[in-house]
């Protein structure tokens, strides 16, 4: 933690960045909150623990945050992947952000360029956590009817607050499909169809792009495990098409490319 603070102080003192976007202590010991550090003294407030979860790359699209100037961003694996994916999608210019990657042992690596991020993220372990994997397998193994009932129950609690969308670093559309009303693709109301369509559309629109940060379900006030939908699609995109979004600034969106011999045994 001290290494992180020290690096933040140095970057600010040298004028390399105008602000460091990190985490500060939250309302309670089990919470952390994003914070914007503008002076070396403020860097004392930076913390790093398992509660620092909201993907900070999400802030890069906010005009107020853009106005701050060049930023350093405290990053975990999914933050780095979000940065690369944003760059691949033309949303982040190289050099706008210095990533401060914090390893499990607290060591801080300063990554001033996208190339440096690519290089580091390539060396990190990949894949889902064991807990996520178990939950995924548990639901996938349910009989169809129970699976349907499970998700109908979960989606019934959705109140369409769109916190999942706001927390996602890759949900940056200027007008979300759910706000398009000519035609009205997704019912505005949080009725069963509206909630099902919203959650399917959100997951599909992240298919081949999601960087597995889990900020969507962390943000859900109803605690719906939306991230599982993303994980399922990410896994399918990876096994079927070799898609690994967020590991490169190259534009290789799985749904905008193809191989002539892609899987099709389900098509008659």
């Amino acid at each position, binding site marked *: 933690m001290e290494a992180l603070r020290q690096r933040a102080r140095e970057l600010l003192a040298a004028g390399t960045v105008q602000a460091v976007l990190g985490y500060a202590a939250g309302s309670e010991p089990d919470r952390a909150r994003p914070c914007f550090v503008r002076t070396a003294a403020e860097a004392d407030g930076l913390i790093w623990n398992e509660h620092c979860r909201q993907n900070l790359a999400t802030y890069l699209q906010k*005009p107020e945050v853009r106005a701050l100037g060049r930023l350093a961003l405290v990053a975990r694996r999914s933050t780095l992947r979000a940065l690369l994916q944003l760059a691949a999608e033309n949303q982040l210019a190289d050099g706008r952000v210095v990533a401060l990657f914090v390893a499990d042992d607290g060591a801080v690596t300063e990554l001033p360029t996208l190339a440096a991020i690519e290089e580091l993220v390539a060396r990190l372990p990949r894949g889902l956590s064991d807990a996520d994997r178990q939950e995924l397998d548990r639901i996938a193994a349910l009989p169809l009817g129970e699976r349907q009932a499970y998700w109908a129950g979960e989606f019934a609690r959705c109140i369409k607050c769109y*916190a999942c969308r706001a927390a996602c670093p890759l949900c940056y559309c200027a007008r979300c499909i759910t706000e398009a009303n000519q035609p009205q693709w997704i019912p505005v109301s949080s009725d069963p169809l509206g909630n099902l369509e919203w959650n399917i559309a959100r997951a599909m629109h992240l298919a081949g792009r999601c960087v597995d940060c889990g900020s969507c379900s962390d943000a859900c006030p109803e*605690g719906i495990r939306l991230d599982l939908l993303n994980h399922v699609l990410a896994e399918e995109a990876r096994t079927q098409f070799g898609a690994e979004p967020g590991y490169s600034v190259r534009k290789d969106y799985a749904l905008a490319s193809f191989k002539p011999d892609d899987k099709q045994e389900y098509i008659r």
Partner: protein
Amino acid sequence: MTEQRILSRQNLGPLFERLAADGRRILAPVRHGDRVGFERVTRPDEVALDYVQTRTSAKSAVFPPYEPLLQFALQGKDVQVAEPAPDAAPTVLFGVHPCDAASFATLEAVFTWDTPDLPFESKRANLTIIGLSCTQGDAYCFCTSVGGGPGDPRGSDILLTPIGATHFLAEILTERGQAVARLAGELLEPHRGNGKDAALAQIPPRFDARQLGAKLPALFNHPAAWQEQALRCLGCGACAFVCPTCSCFDITDERDRYHGVRLRCWDSCGLALFTLHASGHNPRTKQSERWRQRVMHKFAYQPERLGVLGCVGCGRCSRACPVDMNLAQHAQQLAETAV
């Protein structure tokens, strides 16, 4: 007219049965893992009585996430419009905390200040609130800062306060409460003189909402008061959607082939599109302006125009916020900010 009685926990079951027999449905907090929410119940053992706070508020009972305002159908070349019959079954909201009970006053102020709002009023008229004093709070509770308290009877028709492990002190506060008391009959035993204060949670006040409200207009253009706080706000709608007093809604038509329904659905001033004009102009372009609107509305505008505070200190917004935007904390800061 307050009457004090004693209700044994054992008598909750018979009470529920009598309420049901009277044709009332019961909504009460139910626990699922670490989540508590209001649901329809029939038996007291389904009800969570030891909860601190539900995820979403009880306002759905009178202001559901979406509800029809009118129905329309194309009949040949004509349009037929009909107002749907209000979905307002007699309902008892059981076990809501005083903060939620107090929120109905704010909702009433908003929905009835000019034109009667049939969908709201019909539900409200058929709603009886059996409150439950708080014996515990958490770091997010701040009812005492906004004029409420863990045993505040305002808003409840009957307020229950646990007395020991086996009984409740029942304060019968209103005519609607009396009606329930009549149904309960002998289930409500005579009061034995126990005070309720000892049972209540301790929620120290953090600021004075009235004073804050008076001060806020002067802080409107304060350079640092809003920007710094709102910088981390993601602009999601979670706070408004879990809030017991937030009453903003969006009106939308949903249609099928040749018929449809006009719905009102929850909306939030925190969302960027909330104030977007058809012209493309948006008077609130920055999140700090939207956050300011939310705070001003609750603590300054509503007291000024409707005579009610827009906040009951339930703390749900702060618990739900993915980035820990703690409203009480910010209100406290504002209260301490020099004008």
